[in-house]
């Protein structure tokens, strides 16, 4: 499976950009005593943030006068949500970032061993499952989290640990993960993907969005499982507390060039900020997103997560939506989910074999 991949090409292109823009960025940093300007993935975006005192970018307008966020966007990134424990600075140098990307690329390529079943199932370089083949919204930040300043999720409140324990106990009571479909992860069941949001989180692959604005609404279509969120802009009252949803209920407004979206009424079943071991937000979470188009090619995407049942303080992260090519093809996940039946049938076959082996052993005694 080793070959000169599109990923290597992506790194080469990215490095060309980094080299080309270092001077501008250094000037920006030098001209200001504040924090260095965030460095973005496209030449145009970098230029727009690089000139101190330059006029801020003003987005084109939709026919109904909204700043235009329309089109196809990717938020795939190599910047992790949380800063790694062994990193103490906010930004990588371009040289360091080059190594980070190359290491990630190498990890992508070695995910499967050629000739194995896993390799046939997930041919990362062939089908675009290798992240580096995606349009990547790059920046030199060492974490998406910008507040707290250490780039890490804030400490959890005691109630969060208690909730995680109760959830673990409930899962245990329900039996093994492959005992029945209801015990399997939401994503495997095609109910919802972990990063579907809000907030919009980058995924391992298919981190693509289509934004379409109609009069009084913004629609954000997430490629994964065709999740379409319609954000009303008409200052309607808060949603009723009795209606909780997987993706919550969103209310949006324009603050100048920035679309501000507040979402509450989550059902808590697709937590924000959870790891593989579970955890993350409760149904009391409030997510505030800020979409600001900062160039023809980029939307700055900032989100704040508040959940007094989980964290001691709110936290804020920043990522970029990078213009990419459409269209998005229908992601019919559940309709052809032979994975679920295959996994469950496999588990039952294993049990049957084990029972037969145990029976044979008993019989031979």
């Amino acid at each position: 499976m080793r070959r000169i991949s599109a990923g290597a090409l992506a790194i080469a292109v990215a490095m060309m950009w980094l080299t080309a823009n270092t001077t501008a960025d250094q000037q920006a940093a030098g001209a200001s005593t504040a924090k260095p300007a965030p460095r973005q993935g496209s030449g145009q975006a970098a230029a727009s943030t690089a000139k101190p005192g330059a006029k801020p970018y003003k987005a084109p307008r939709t026919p109904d006068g909204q700043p235009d966020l329309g089109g196809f966007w990717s938020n795939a990134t190599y910047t992790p949500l949380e800063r790694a424990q062994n990193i103490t600075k906010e930004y990588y140098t371009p040289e360091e970032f080059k190594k980070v990307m190359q290491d990630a690329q190498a990890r992508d390529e070695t995910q499967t061993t050629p000739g194995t079943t896993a390799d046939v199932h997930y041919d990362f370089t062939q089908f675009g499952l290798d992240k580096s083949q995606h349009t990547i919204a790059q920046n030199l930040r060492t974490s998406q989290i910008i507040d707290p300043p250490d780039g890490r999720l804030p400490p959890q409140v005691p109630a969060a640990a208690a909730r995680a324990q109760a959830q673990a106990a409930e899962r245990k009571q329900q039996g093994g993960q492959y005992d029945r479909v209801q015990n399997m992860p939401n994503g495997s069941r095609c109910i919802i993907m972990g990063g579907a949001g809000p907030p919009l989180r980058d995924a391992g692959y298919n981190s693509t969005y289509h934004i379409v604005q109609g009069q009084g609404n913004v629609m954000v279509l997430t490629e994964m499982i065709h999740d379409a969120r319609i954000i009303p802009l008409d200052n309607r009252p808060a949603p009723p507390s009795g209606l909780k949803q997987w993706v919550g209920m969103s209310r949006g407004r324009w603050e100048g060039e920035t679309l501000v979206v507040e979402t509450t009424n989550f059902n808590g079943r697709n937590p924000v900020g959870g790891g593989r071991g579970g955890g993350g937000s409760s149904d009391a979470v409030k997510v505030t997103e800020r979409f600001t188009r900062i160039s023809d090619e980029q939307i700055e995407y900032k989100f704040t997560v508040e959940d007094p049942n989980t964290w001691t303080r709110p936290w804020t992260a920043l990522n970029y939506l990078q213009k990419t090519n459409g269209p998005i093809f229908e992601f019919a996940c559940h309709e052809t989910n032979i994975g679920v039946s295959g996994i469950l049938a496999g588990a039952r076959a294993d049990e049957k074999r084990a029972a037969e082996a145990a029976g044979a052993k008993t019989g031979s005694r």
Partner: protein
Amino acid sequence: MTKRWFVGGAVLAGALFLLATSVPGQTGYKAPRTGDGKPNLNGIWQAMTSAHWDVEAHPAAAGPMWELGAQFAIQGGAGIVEGGQIPYTPEALKKKRENFANRTKLDPEIKCYLPGVPRAMYMPYPFQIIQNPKYIMIVHEFAGAVRTIYMDNHTDAPAPSWMGWSNGKWEGEALVVDTKGYLDSTWFDRAGNHHSDELHTIERFSARSPDTLNYEVTINDPKTFTRTWKMSLPLYRRVEPNAQLTEYRCVEFSEEMLYGHLKKKTSE
């Protein structure tokens, strides 16, 4: 006298003009415009028919699950098929009857599969039109089904799909949507009316009043039908002040019927 004749003539001429220009499905109503001057179809819409049970005329009847009694029995209706009957080929009619007989096992709606077109348009769930010069989105409450209508850069379907590949254009007051690239896996209703992967639909959406649309769909599928046929129905705006699509993420509602037989025997 002369004046009277003149007025009468004008009225007559006006009536003749109306007659000459009125096309079925058009009311002469002119919709408010969007910022780019197109009829504004933005909104949350819903059908009010019993066509989701059967697009053809049908009397009220017991439902497929006797346990649910009168709550999930079939509401009668005059149907939405122009001319009354779907012009199936003999083989396709046979398949329709088989589908009906096995509908609790076969109907893709029960499995929470993407409903396809036109079925999604008259299911008993609202859908929202998000209208933009380049893309018009139709977002359905049922299963979160989504359709992207490409208003420029028309292309053929890159591959077959459940909701098809839609190219749209404006013809005066009407949004005309041409869709191909369908899978053969969707149905038209709960009665087992069906189509093949050669299905080609042409839909026309036009405003008939501030809060209603005329919707008509022409169905062409030579593998299944002996001729082109048509369905039409009004769509009603959901006028509640805070109307919003509510999540109907139905996968987990279908899982027990789809995968229940594969669960571990002791995990009941």
